[in-house]
């Protein structure tokens, strides 16, 4: 295992401490429950909490700050945080306007965020709402009962719902706009290598040099199919094609594109892929109104990328472009 860590057990705690030291102007840390929260907690706005397994850095803690999240709960690597961790985040970020949980749609996360929300509502009378992000189009929805995974599109939910909350909107309105994003964002990802979970010490799956996994999530799980590697143009074609299959985008539409690296892929390659994605959108007469290219929702050191497309209307545009000041995104 090639990692800069102390011990596999201390990875998340050490990371949280380093994160706090690096961004102490932005955040505070509850060490016991691994909750990273805004330095100044505002109890007069809807507070947004996200989180999930660690290993997706800068998600989610990197987006804690003005215009995005209020808190992020850090689970173990690729494991949802526990019910108690999330419960403590909710009570810490309790607000007069209520709390919105932004949950990626994984069984573990859903069960634990739901359990924590129930607890906070029952024991502490905190008004908690939840949205479940399920942007991954790799797996066809209808075949399975748990629904799609939540992947990189989550970052758009953070950005837009965060901007909405900053306007002083109420919980219902913030939840509604988060759900609008979820309804309009789709993501397709692929991996060239596995990642290595520190506790495991070796790659999650083996893969030969000429092969790739198409349709991966962000937890080092294998994808939907193993295929021969293809060039950037073909990759873009397939990813965008799959997204369009699932969510048709009209000619003349404005979209936001997130070209997300999975952690082990250099920025150079993300720009190359972005260039190909733009060619396809351009040919389809679709206008890229907003873009992000970089590592936003990673899977440790996995080499690979995902393409997310969000259909925009005027409301989403304005919120997407609103100010944000967080460790990982400043606009």
């Amino acid at each position, binding site marked *: 295992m090639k990692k800069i860590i102390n011990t596999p057990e201390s990875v998340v705690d050490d990371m949280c401490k380093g994160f706090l030291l690096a961004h102490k102007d932005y955040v505070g840390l509850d060490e016991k429950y691994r909750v990273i929260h805004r330095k100044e907690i505002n109890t007069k706005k809807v507070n947004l909490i996200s989180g999930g397994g660690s290993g997706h850095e800068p998600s989610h803690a990197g987006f804690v700050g003005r215009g995005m999240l209020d808190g992020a709960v850090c689970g173990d690597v690729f494991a949802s945080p526990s019910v108690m961790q999330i419960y403590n985040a909710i009570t810490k970020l309790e607000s007069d306007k209520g709390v919105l949980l932004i949950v990626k749609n994984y069984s*573990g996360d859903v069960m*634990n965020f739901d359990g924590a929300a129930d607890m906070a509502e029952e024991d502490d009378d905190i008004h908690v709402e939840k949205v479940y992000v399920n942007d991954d189009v790799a797996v066809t929805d209808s075949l*399975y009962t*748990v629904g799609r995974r939540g992947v990189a599109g989550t970052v758009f939910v953070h950005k837009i719902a965060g901007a909405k909350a900053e306007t002083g909107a109420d919980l219902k309105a913030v939840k509604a706009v988060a759900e609008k994003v979820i309804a309009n964002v789709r993501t397709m990802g692929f991996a060239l290598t596995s990642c290595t979970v520190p506790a*495991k010490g070796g790659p999650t799956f083996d893969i030969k040099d000429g092969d790739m996994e198409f349709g991966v999530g962000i937890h*080092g799980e294998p994808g939907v*199919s193993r295929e021969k590697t293809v060039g950037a143009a073909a990759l873009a074609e397939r990813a965008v094609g799959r997204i369009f299959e699932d969510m048709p985008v009209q000619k003349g539409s404005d979209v936001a594109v997130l070209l997300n690296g999975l952690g082990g892929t250099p920025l150079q390659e993300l720009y190359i892929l972005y260039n190909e994605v733009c060619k396809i959108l351009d040919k389809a007469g679709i206008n890229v109104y907003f873009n992000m290219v970089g590592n936003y929702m990673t899977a440790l050191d996995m080499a690979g990328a995902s393409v997310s497309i969000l259909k925009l209307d005027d409301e989403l545009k304005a919120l997407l472009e609103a100010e944000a000041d967080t460790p990982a995104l400043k606009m």
Partner: protein
Amino acid sequence: MKTLNISDIKSVLKITADTVLENEKHFCDLDAVIGDGDFGMTLAKGFRVIKVELEKFEADDIGGLMKSIGMTMLETCGGATGSLWGAGFRAMGKSAKGKSEAELTDISEMTASFIGGMQKVGGAVLGDKTLLDALIPASESMAKDADAGLDIAEAMKNAGAAATMGADNTKQLIAKKGRATYLGDRSLGYPDAGAEAISVLFKAVNDKFFC
């Protein structure tokens, strides 16, 4: 053996905890094939705390112990495991509330409650390729043996065999709950990690306690 007292229950739980810790890597490896490879770690994290808890727990109350273990799982374990096992143990706690001894009927009911707790939060049924595919046959075997008035040790042996068969069976299932669903039919041919773990735990408890 006709009843288990609190110290028997603690012994069984101690064996369970030790077995989880011994199999941490093995359970992770199983989860890695069609899941994300953290199942052993998550479970071990909880049972490491539970081991200490077992020694500290004073009251003569099987239900209280189970509830306390459930809370520990919710506090310590993330992942699907935290909520599922947390809910399972808490449901067992309810079912055995105030009991200082358990007969086979009680144990069988506790197991059914464990399953019910898990189903309430996880919504899985038999055949979804989860640990329930080992637990449900085991629980049914216990219920039958309880009706038939079998000895606990005997019944546990039967339950263990049912769990192992159930776990084996998961190889032929396509996952409908949990992460393995994302693989579609690529989950075929591999067992579910949780179900395998249930089978391993039954075997250890039977080899070391009910022998």
